[in-house]
């Protein structure tokens, strides 16, 4: 328990009691459980690094991602240009670094939209049972059952592809899983004593939802969001890959992969780097999510 001291500093009011009987807050115990999982910590560090890289892309990149080097079309990696050049002669390494911006913006932006819609739908369906529940649950089931790529292609084509479109379109189509999980949580919370007690003393629906229910669904939602960011990054890349996401010349991993496909037999190296970055990023979010689940919500199992 030697580590409990540094954990304690994160909570101001916490004063460690006797060494034998450390009474620690739920949050610090969760942090301890999280730290024990080495893969999740590495994944978290990777994500922080990626965020820094995306924020400071302007100073990190060795070359301008839009500059075209004449006579360098499709030239392979060298010490000066670590990942080589793309099919028009732009530095791939710089483009991949800038691509992380798009991936994270879409990953976090679309997740936020999806969480807001999903939590609202889930709480409404779970708290006010009856016809709103039936209607919203059918809607959720339908959305989950439908091939999401088909929906994304349609919506992106209607609105016209751009970064904002990509974020919004993915956000409004990926909320079903949150709605489903939140609804199930609310259903079970509704029957617990503290909610029944709040009802009995005459608390309003609004107060019960915001004070008693929402704080208790946050843990599974945080876990799901982390696991969901990976899926959303893949969706963004898929959409850009099909030409309906981020538009050239803005660098994005999916867009670069699309170039990679077109020139796969001539310049196979173009498709390598963005793909590896997608895999590492998605893997990192998945591992972080697994670690958070074990830490925040030890009873919860795989949700597929």
């Amino acid at each position, binding site marked *: 328990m030697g580590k409990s001291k540094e954990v304690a500093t994160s909570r101001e009011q916490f004063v460690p009691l006797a060494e034998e009987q450390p009474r620690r807050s739920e949050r610090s115990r969760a942090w301890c459980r999280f730290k024990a999982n080495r893969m999740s910590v590495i994944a978290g560090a990777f994500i922080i690094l990626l965020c820094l890289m995306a924020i400071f892309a302007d100073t990190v990149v060795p070359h301008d991602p839009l500059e075209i080097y004449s006579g360098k079309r499709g030239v392979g990696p060298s010490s000066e240009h670590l990942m080589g050049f793309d099919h028009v002669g732009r530095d791939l390494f710089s483009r991949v670094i800038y691509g992380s911006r798009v991936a994270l913006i879409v990953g976090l932006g679309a997740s936020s939209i999806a969480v807001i819609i999903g939590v609202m739908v889930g709480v409404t369906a779970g708290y006010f049972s009856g016809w709103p529940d039936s209607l919203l649950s059918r*809607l959720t089931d339908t959305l989950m059952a439908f091939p999401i790529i*088909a929906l994304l292609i349609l919506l992106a084509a209607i609105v016209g592809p751009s970064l904002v479109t990509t974020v919004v379109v993915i956000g409004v189509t990926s909320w079903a899983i949150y709605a489903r999980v939140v609804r199930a949580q609310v259903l079970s919370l509704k029957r617990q004593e503290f909610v029944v007690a709040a009802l009995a003393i005459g608390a309003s629906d609004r107060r019960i939802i915001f004070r008693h229910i929402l704080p208790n669904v946050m843990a599974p939602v945080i876990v799901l969001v982390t696991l969901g960011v990976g899926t959303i990054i893949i969706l963004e890349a898929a959409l850009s890959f099909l030409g309906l996401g981020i538009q050239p010349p803005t660098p994005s991993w999916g867009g670069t992969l699309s170039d990679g496909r077109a020139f796969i037999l001539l310049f196979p190296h173009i498709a390598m780097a963005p793909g590896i970055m997608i895999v590492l990023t*998605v893997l990192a979010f998945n591992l972080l999510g697994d670690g958070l689940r074990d830490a925040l919500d030890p009873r919860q199992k795989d949700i597929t």
Partner: protein
Amino acid sequence: MARYTVVRLAEGLVVLLLISVATFLIMRLLPGDPVMILLGEGGGGIRMTEEQIEAIHRRWGLDDPWHVQYLLWVKNMFTGNFGKSIFRPGVPVREMIFEAIPVTFIISAAGLIIALALAIPMGIVAATRRNSLFDYAATIFSTLGVALPNFWIALMLIVLFSLVLKWLPPFGLHSWQGYIMPVMVIATLQMAVIMRVTRGSLIEELGEDYVRTARAKGLAERGVIGTHAIRNALLPVVTVIGVQFAYILSGTIIVETVFALPGIGRLFTDSVLHLDYQVVQSIVFLLAVIVVVVNLLTDLTYALIDPRIRIE
């Protein structure tokens, strides 16, 4: 069971209705006039009078009120008359779709069957020999498998089998060999998911009391797993296949684009870009029917295996 079937069937029909209305409205919101798109940029150099454009609109029923168009469309859907393509004038949509279905069906069915055939035994071995080398390898595979975007797997397979080894054609469907890589892509992701679920649920079942009882009465381990544990452990796998079905269809859309295969997915993507209303609507409706039927089948299978579900 009969009551349960009827309720699920009714719900399926409601879902279909919702999807058909949504699709129809979405298609009407698409920007651009299909007639203009057909003619090409700026009318393709063809000068048409207002009357001529109007005549074309009338001929394709594009001028009718929306509800009339919708009702006509629903009637046509149920009679198997999907209308005619706007982009390829005169070609019946039904013909285009029927040409494309076999390709998509083969890729998704073969991918799923191969995934099941490999992933379930792998999951069982991993669960029964926990923390063995095989278990670690299988876990790494399934963790990595769900993080791999299918279009990237596809590209890497092309590099390996077409560019380096020169065994398989990279694009197109000129022989049965064209199916190998697409099926591999679909199978990889499904294997990762199915194996993970099989392993997880079998491990859980092995901790149950009835398994201990079976072992205590001296049943061989093979019998404990083969006749007792596996039947319960496969229940979540059935559910997951139902859920994964949508992902498989999404996957084929991408895979068909990467490998340039003439399946439903590519027909859909092309038709969206060409604003070919009839084709897009028909495909979405078809996908919806398939999805609803598959979900109904999974639910019923599940209710058949697990009587607890029916009572709800």
